[in-house]
């Protein structure tokens, strides 16, 4: 898989339940002529990792309300949101916010 983009995807706060209850996924994104952004990562996740009920993860081209996206422990809003260009070894965490107490 030479040339692929190796990154870590993590899911938490209950979002992991949509991914076979697995919180951490080491993945290699296939080489592509355009740079990988979160905008095109999301459909890739849907096709390759998501096990059930995509509507509980995605809404339109972005994540559903209540899910925070964090790139290397920083809010994706600080990094250009959907347009953030993914780099090798990035860790991208999708966390569903909790409301219980």
């Amino acid at each position, binding site marked *: 898989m030479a040339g692929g983009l190796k990154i870590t995807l993590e899911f938490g706060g*209950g979002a992991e339940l949509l991914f076979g209850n697995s919180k951490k996924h080491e993945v290699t994104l296939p080489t592509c002529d355009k740079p990988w952004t979160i905008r095109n990562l999301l459909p890739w996740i849907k096709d390759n990792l998501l096990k059930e009920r995509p509507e509980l993860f995605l809404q339109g081209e972005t994540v*559903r309300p209540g899910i925070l996206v964090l790139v290397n422990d920083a809010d994706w809003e*600080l990094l250009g949101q959907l347009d953030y260009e993914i780099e090798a070894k990035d860790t991208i965490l999708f966390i569903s916010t*909790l409301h219980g*107490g």
Partner: protein
Amino acid sequence: MTQKIIEDLEIEIAGLEKILRSKKLELKNLRESVLTSPPKANKRLTKEDIERFSRQIIIPAIGCKGQMALTAASVLIVGAGGLGCPASQYLTGAGVGCIGLVDYDDVECSNLHRQLLHSEESIGMPKVSSASEALKRLYSKTNIVEYKTQLRSSNALDIVSKYDVVVDATDNVATRYLLNDACVMLGKPLVSGSALRLEGQLTVYNYNGSPCYRCLFPKPPPPETVTNCGDGGVLGVVPGVIGVLEALEAIKIVLGWTGVLSGQLLLFSAESGTFRNIRLRGRNPGCDACGDAPTITSLIDYEQFCGTKATDKDTALKLLAREQRISPETLNEIFICKKKGLLIDVRNSEEFDMCAIPHSINVPLKNIDDPSTVNKIKGLLQNDDSHQENLSVYVVCRRGNDSQKAVLKLQEILRDQNLVICDLEGGLHAWSKKIDASFPVY
């Protein structure tokens, strides 16, 4: 003879408890009439204060000045449950002068694994009274103000305005938005914690240029994506950890420290024993609540905004017609006594393992339309040697909500099978009440 003595003792104890309750209420009312406002900070700490708080006063970052600030401070805690119990306990321990507690709910048995200010004796009591009594036992001088009410748009501003710092220890989305908006309007820092299963989250909103809840979550989550502790479960230690940290953040705000967890989100995983600190966006100038031109200038209808009730209680769904639902009595007669039909329990396997109706089979709701499940159900139906006409499938869950969703799905999947598919109205709670009192209600 012994039975009679037991009965007499029970009656006598009940009478004494009644007297004790009324005496405590009288004492509380008297104290409240004396202490209508938080005690004013004395110029100097008393002998008792020094002896009691010396271990924290001698920390250079606190000192006498810090202790006097804590004595003069008032903190509102919304929710006297899994987060509110530890938060209020540590704030009381630290000597915070006035603590407001808001909770409309009464103590239930299923609270006691995590809400440790309450005890077996307080089951059925208002949570605010039970918590207040426990806090008073810890430190009798603290002024505890009880609000046995739900926080609403009509009372939130009035209550919140009386306090310096607010702790969100609630259990539902609608109240979280309400509390956020009230704190933004009144300029109060909001320490916000939450917990579910084995994870916790903590941050401070609306403080020193940090975002508010709406900056992060402009739109509420779809109701079907929200899980409460009753459905998802929670290990008591997890809200314990987060609630204690909420107390810590409130103390830091009172003391004016710089390291407050605003603009950051702390993620706690009990499973991996890790804390992760996330850098959050700044305040959004376009935010509906705290932005430069806010559109929310008075409190709105938060249940409507979120599409859910402002509690963590489940409301009864009505997806099925009368004739598609059966009573516990009918289920008992047909399935248990006549051994007819197939009973599918759609709860999670963990819940099914805890307790289940004999001979029921477990197909969790989320797996109900898997092809393997459909084949399994069809196989079981073919093996059923009862008469072909009126072959019945009964569906059961905890309260009778998920079972209705499952019936709708099964009707779709099994529409070629000529079956009668019904659910048990009121679920296993109703089963326990009407048929089998030994069946646990949880």
